[in-house]
């Protein structure tokens, strides 16, 4: 009996001590946890999100920790709960993955803390939560620009859509489809791709067989590059207008200049394409800190965090104060002017970028301002 009791005691102590390792310490200063996907298929975009937030928070009085949410709701909720262990959390930089956001919204409402994100998934601002603030034009905005550019500028009569089967892909595809129909040019071909698909020739062959005259992509970074490369290789000679992943320097780096040439993409903005001095300063600081080119996600998150910092400077000392400030104020960010539409959609403009010439830096060929009419 005694050895049994000793084992129970020893095991109890070991397990309790081991479990206690995860207990986190509380903080004294105001805090903005950064919860983003830095591993998994969204690591590229998530890292941009992290970098943008870090660039804004560095040098401020606000404390922050970065936690990886990977790509599952479970890990995102774990990270959120862990972050909320700390005191004085005034806002959370939340992941851009739609399914993770959908899992976090009830928690954010329960903890009553605002989340700032660059997620494009339309649904996250349609659930009635007062705690979602999207600092990237949602699908309602960018897909309207996407469809309008294809139809109005390129004269598309038979557009085709290739989208991802993730939440991001399904949300964007639905908006594209709706906008194209509204413009009187419904898609002649639509197909969803798994993230893991590497051979794009089958789906591109179907696009060619459909007689499509413009190909619209709504894919993540890697698949976008693969589709464009294989479309060029098979001689699919129709205009391609990709989603915002295309504008990312990392995506462009996966392609040869000849493959990029003529390709276009929608985005909220493109910091490397802008020529103003403030954009140059941002891009230089970003390169210096992270040794990479800034993209739209980084800039969106940078602006979002800066708006929260502006709220704090404006007197907000807790989560409720920050939320209230975000709901009721306009903010002139680096990329654009932000204001809530009442649902947490803060960005209302979009641009179309095209790779013109041998340069890997895309040029802004069309701006769609205040698409929602909020501003």
């Amino acid at each position, binding site marked *: 009996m005694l050895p049994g009791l000793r084992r129970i005691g020893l095991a*109890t102590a070991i397990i309790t001590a081991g479990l206690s390792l995860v207990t986190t310490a509380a903080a004294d200063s105001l805090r903005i946890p950064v919860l983003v996907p830095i591993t998994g298929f969204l690591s590229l975009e998530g890292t941009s999100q992290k970098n943008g937030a870090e660039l804004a928070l560095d040098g401020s009085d606000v404390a922050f920790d970065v936690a990886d949410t990977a*790509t599952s709701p479970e890990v995102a909720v774990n990270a959120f709960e*862990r972050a*909320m262990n700390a005191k004085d959390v005034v806002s959370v930089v939340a992941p851009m993955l739609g399914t993770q956001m959908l899992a976090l919204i009830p928690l954010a409402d329960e903890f009553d803390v605002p989340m700032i994100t660059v997620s494009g998934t339309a*649904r996250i601002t349609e659930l009635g939560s007062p705690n979602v603030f999207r600092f990237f034009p949602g699908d309602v905005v960018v897909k309207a620009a996407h469809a309008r550019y294809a139809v109005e500028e390129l004269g598309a009569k038979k557009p085709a859509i290739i989208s991802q089967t993730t939440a991001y892909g399904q949300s964007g595809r639905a908006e594209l489809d709706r906008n194209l129909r509204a413009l009187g040019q419904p898609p002649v071909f639509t197909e969803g791709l798994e993230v893991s698909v590497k051979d794009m020739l089958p789906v591109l062959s179907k696009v060619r067989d459909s007689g499509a005259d413009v190909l619209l992509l709504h894919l993540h970074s890697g698949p976008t590059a693969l589709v464009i490369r294989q479309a060029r290789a098979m001689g699919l000679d129709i205009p391609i207008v990709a989603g915002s992943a295309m504008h990312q320097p990392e995506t462009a780096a996966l392609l040869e200049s000849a493959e990029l040439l003529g390709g276009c993409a929608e985005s909220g903005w493109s910091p490397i394409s802008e020529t103003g001095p403030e954009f140059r300063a941002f891009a230089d600081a970003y390169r210096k800190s992270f040794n990479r080119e800034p993209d739209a996600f980084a800039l969106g998150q940078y602006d979002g965090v800066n708006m929260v910092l502006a709220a704090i400077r404006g007197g907000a000392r807790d989560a409720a104060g920050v939320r209230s400030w975000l709901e009721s104020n306009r903010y002139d960010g680096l990329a654009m002017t932000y204001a809530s539409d009442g649902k947490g959609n803060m960005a209302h403009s979009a641009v179309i970028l095209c790779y013109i010439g041998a340069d890997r830096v895309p040029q802004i060929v069309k701006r769609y301002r205040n698409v929602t009419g909020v501003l």
Partner: protein
Amino acid sequence: MTGMHLGRDRVTLIAGGVALAVYATLFASSYDQRILTLSGVYVIMVLGYQFIFGHSGALSLAQGAFFGVGAYVTGIVGSQFGTGFLITFPLSIALATLLAAIVAAPVLRLASHYFALATLALNQLLLVIAVNWESVTGGANGIPGVPPVILFDWQVGRGLPLLVFVWALAAAAMLIAHWQLRPSRVSSFTVMRETPLAAPAFGIEPGLLRFRAFLFSAAFGGAAGALFVHTNRVVSPETLGFGIMVTCLTMTVVGGRFRIAGAVIGALLLTHLPEWFRGLDEYYLVAVGFLLLAMVVFAPNGLAPLFLRAGEPSRLSKTIAGDIEPPAKSTAGLVIEGLSKRYGGVRALDGASLQVEPGEIVGLIGPNGAGKTTLANLVTGIERGDAGHVERASANLSVLSATAIARSGIARTFQTSQLPDELTVRQVVSTAAVNLGSTAPADKVVNGALALCKLSDDADTHCGTLPHGVRRRVEIARAIAGDPGVLVLDEPAAGLADEEQRQVADICRALAHAGTAILLIDHNLEFLRTSVTRLACMDAGRIIMEGPFDTVLADPAVRAAYFGMADQ
């Protein structure tokens, strides 16, 4: 698993339970409580997976599918129809189990990697449905806003209440697993897993055992999926993703495949490990990977055995005269009539006929390839014949399964040893006694068989450590544990020393004296001379001669076939 094993499992579980209770109530933050809650969910999933992957030995990749079904049933029914936990939870378990029952027929026929691929395909199929059936499943976004657990108007709140609730269900799952995995059934699983050929011959129904294990794995998986959704409040395709399956597999391997404590250790460790290394930012996965690799290398059987120490089986009570069940007198022999069997172009049996009367020992000799083992396989139902039949007490046995034939009183041993290394002699014999449905008390039957085969002193020894001669006697002890009327011994004296041969011969004579009909296949003529009542010789799938020992050996056809000697 012996009673002592269970005792140690219980000690570990009590220690873990006390530690968890102390930690959860005194130290844990809401975040810590969430991680512990998730651990409890995974404990249930891994307990289920132990049935099919551990005990049944089948690499199922469908546990994630059952988990996902449970998750989606709860997510859809709970959020779309506002149905409460008391309905959604059992419904999630029921539909996951129903799915398992439906796919079991085609899937459980497959073995090894084919089984793994088929179960993986099930997972992928459900994932495609979940992603693309947007109107019902919410597509890739999934369904947010799954209601919390509500029991009779009491909402189980996040944090400690949900933690206690989930672990209460995990404890219930452990009790169910404990009840299902009683020692005799664990031994049956071991025999099925390690010696699948022999299992049916000792009353074990591999198909039924695997089916039951598959259903339990599905039920537990469905329950875990339902709780997972209540814990996360959203259901999405990630619940059907391969990541869940890999997590489950890793937890099972790291914790241990067989013991309840292994499920608890694996789930607790694997849910906490990534959290402990979060400080390493994007490198935490590397650290977790290295640690898991080290665990698998240094504890290949999982961590549970390290906590439980090596199992020591209970001591066999001293065999006394009153404990021994003497073999019952048999009244019906064996009739083999015109058995034929072809393997492609090879005719292994060609109308073989033979009778063995109760109390008679019939020796069967013949050159290699004559068809002796094929005859034994057809008599015991291991294989099906093309023509002819086998009868006992006027009953046609040829239409029965191997398990049914064994239970009807026809037992056998195998040419090559079919003993599971990790079971003790007593466990092997008692497993056969229980599964063959002996009418006498199992202890008496087992003690009787061990005493008759002079194995009482080896009863607690693991079969894997036994010398060849003793293993042969263990096989005979196991064969007679079901009190058979007919015994087929396939080369029991092969490789035995003279003394060991005499021991086997003594056993055969004692059994025959009690009325058992024995068909004794061997090449050792001295052994057969001292053992058999009469002798038969096979060649090219036929019985070419039978009769008294010396008469058969003197027969020119036998001499030509068996000794290669043509008479002048």
